[in-house]
């Protein structure tokens, strides 16, 4: 996503990225980042919490209007839950990231991509 932000900025469009993965977004050289420490899938706020969503989007609007240079990160103050256990459990054996169903679909997609490439090579 940050790579697209970079293409847009280079092309004259201002961007702000709302992310739940601070390290990935910063590493990619993101022009303007609003980071909220929530589980992946909640980049602009807590589900069904209008005020929280408005606050996070508002932080992005302020950053757009105030950033004097690229690379500024705004860390919003919102906390997902008092229990921070969800952070430790991510990508642990107890909580595999890829579900079995998703892994089957992923393998199928890879197979199709390889077949497509093989056809392209053959037809070239």
């Amino acid at each position, binding site marked *: 996503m940050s790579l697209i932000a970079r293409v847009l900025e280079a092309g004259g469009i201002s*961007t702000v990225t709302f992310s739940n993965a601070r390290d990935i977004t910063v590493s990619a050289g993101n022009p303007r980042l609003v980071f909220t420490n929530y589980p992946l899938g909640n980049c*602009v706020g807590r589900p069904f919490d209008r005020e929280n969503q408005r606050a996070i989007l508002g932080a992005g609007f302020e950053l757009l209007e105030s950033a004097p240079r690229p690379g500024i990160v705004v860390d919003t103050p919102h906390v997902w839950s008092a229990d921070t256990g969800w*952070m430790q459990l991510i990508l642990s054996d107890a909580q595999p990231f890829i579900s079995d169903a998703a892994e089957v679909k992923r393998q199928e997609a890879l197979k199709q991509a390889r077949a497509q490439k093989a056809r392209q090579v053959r037809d070239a």
Partner: protein
Amino acid sequence: MEYVHYIDKTHEYYRKLGYAKTYNYARNDDIPFTPLKKPLAKCRVAIVSTAQFVMVDAAGNDLEPVRMSGTNVVEVFPIPSDWSPDRIRSTSEDHDRYQTEMKDIDAFFPITRLNEFVREGVLGSLAREFFRTLPNYSHRKTTEVDGPEILRRCREQHVDVALLCPV
């Protein structure tokens, strides 16, 4: 501030699963920048997202195919910016499914909130369409194919500001 270090964690996770190569996360030190050219209240705004969902009709039938990870063809899928938030079905596999369910589109694709901000005069207007693309392992594909296509469509719709919403 404590937060999850996804790069280290995913490398460790896939190493344990036996993958020989780990994903090469993008690293850039130079950062392109376009300062905002006018007040937000005069800007046209678009969402760009890697959220995976399909538009559905009133009866709940899918109106488009379910798409998984990116391939090597252009993958930019528009959605009308006035699309009804209850006419989508999430197909995401990338969120933290132990913590969250992707049942409120406005938590990851803020279509209702942005329409509110336009009505309130905080934002000038919305692009006719918002844009979805697929996560892609290839940095080159994103930078040279999907990124430029999103830029082209944003220019066509006179977009001033893009809000990027990754999942």
